[in-house]
């Protein structure tokens, strides 16, 4: 909590007044941007090379900049406790931060995000020893031309807070189960114009998602405006016993909360 407040304060300082040196050396400019973001989000903590610990999968060229699929995987034997996804050149760079609970599986996380311009993305893993480990990927997608609020958002607003859960295969007690959660939410980033009213739709985004299984935490996600309309979270959890209930609590930036509960049957039942 303290850390994220600090991050927000520092990011606030990186406003338009921040002088970014003119440079034709793209790599140097990108490294400088990541350095600034690193300081803003993680403070003075050093971030080591994440090779062998964390991988980030994203399409090299995304067809739809408003819906770029991202998969983060981490090594099972490295005691990863949380991950963060940073889209360096987005106006809201910290797309999501996730902490995994006792029945969460840090090995796998899938998200869909918005990408403003050609950018580096960084995925950072935190391990139980408190160390940070990073990996990066360059993604070519450009949605920086003020995407309008479309019919998708209107439909999403009408059903705001509705959730769907899809389990991949049958759940077996003691083994990781992969699941995909879809949350109906327009996730307005405050930069989209309503073409009818000619007004900008106020920012309203999914801020917190808490997922638990039979009372034990699976994961806690803090989101931001870079998550796509109708956020989709792919994750794994470890059911101790089946059947059980997967519960989801969502809170958005307007402080509206939404809850859902899903039965997870035992295999063969």
């Amino acid at each position, binding site marked *: 909590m303290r850390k994220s407040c600090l991050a927000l304060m520092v*990011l606030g300082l*990186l406003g338009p007044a921040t002088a970014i040196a*003119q*440079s034709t050396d793209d790599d140097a400019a990108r490294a400088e941007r990541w350095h600034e973001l690193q300081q803003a989000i993680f403070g003075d903590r050093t971030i080591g090379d994440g090779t062998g610990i964390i991988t980030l999968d994203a399409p090299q060229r995304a067809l739809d900049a408003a819906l770029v699929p991202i998969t983060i995987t981490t090594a099972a034997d490295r005691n990863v406790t949380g991950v963060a996804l940073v889209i360096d050149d987005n106006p809201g760079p910290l797309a999501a931060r996730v902490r995994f609970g006792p029945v969460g599986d840090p090995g796998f996380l899938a998200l869909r995000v918005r990408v403003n311009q050609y950018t580096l993305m960084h995925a950072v893993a935190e391990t139980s020893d408190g160390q940070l480990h990073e990996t990066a990927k360059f993604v070519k997608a450009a949605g920086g*031309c003020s995407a309008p609020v479309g019919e998708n958002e209107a439909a999403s607003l009408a059903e705001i807070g509705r959730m769907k859960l899809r389990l991949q295969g049958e759940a077996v007690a003691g083994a990781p189960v992969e699941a995909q959660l879809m949350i109906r939410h327009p996730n307005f980033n405050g930069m989209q114009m309503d*073409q009818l009213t*000619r007004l900008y739709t106020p920012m309203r*985004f999914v801020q917190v998602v808490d997922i638990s299984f039979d009372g034990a935490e699976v994961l806690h996600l803090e989101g931001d405006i870079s998550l796509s309309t109708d956020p989709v979270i792919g994750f794994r959890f470890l059911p101790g016993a089946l059947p059980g209930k997967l519960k989801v609590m969502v809170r958005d930036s307007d402080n509206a909360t939404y809850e859902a509960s899903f039965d997870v049957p035992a295999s063969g039942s």
Partner: protein
Amino acid sequence: MRVKTVALAIVLALSATTAASGADPAPPEPPGIWTGPLQGAVPATITGGEVLGTEELAALVAAEGPVLVDVAPWPRKPENLASGTWSRPPHRSLPGAVWLPDVGNGDIPLAHEAWLRARLKALTGNDPGKPLVIFCHPNCWASWNAAKRAILYGYQRVYWYPDGVEGWQDSGRPTEVIQAQKRPG
């Protein structure tokens, strides 16, 4: 006039979802400035000006050193900023380009239009025959609109580069981080 604009906006809004997907065929040129969604398929032509591809632009830059005007929209800071994790990202553009943000928007305040006229005048050294290249991002109407405005102001050699910054990057050419020029209001 106002009613007409609103009616047009409604028609455009209805087609917005398909236009944003990127794979759509080029629409015909609108009769004047486009006031629909900025993001979407753009025309293949611009009456009164010339459309440039990346190689043609590179050749023009090498031969004549045209005025390069980037009109990419300025990321708008949301008013009800709750989380604060918002910062204007660095803006990459063609080396030597001047960034005049938002002058390609459909409806712009008179003050912005006056500023655009004044900036173009200064950048061309008050020479209406000076080559002027206008661009932003792919599938973005801002550059089409701004080029249209320059044509309407009487510039004789207006080049529209629809592939924009990303088209330039895709060709492997270098870009540089530039700051927006300060405009009134």
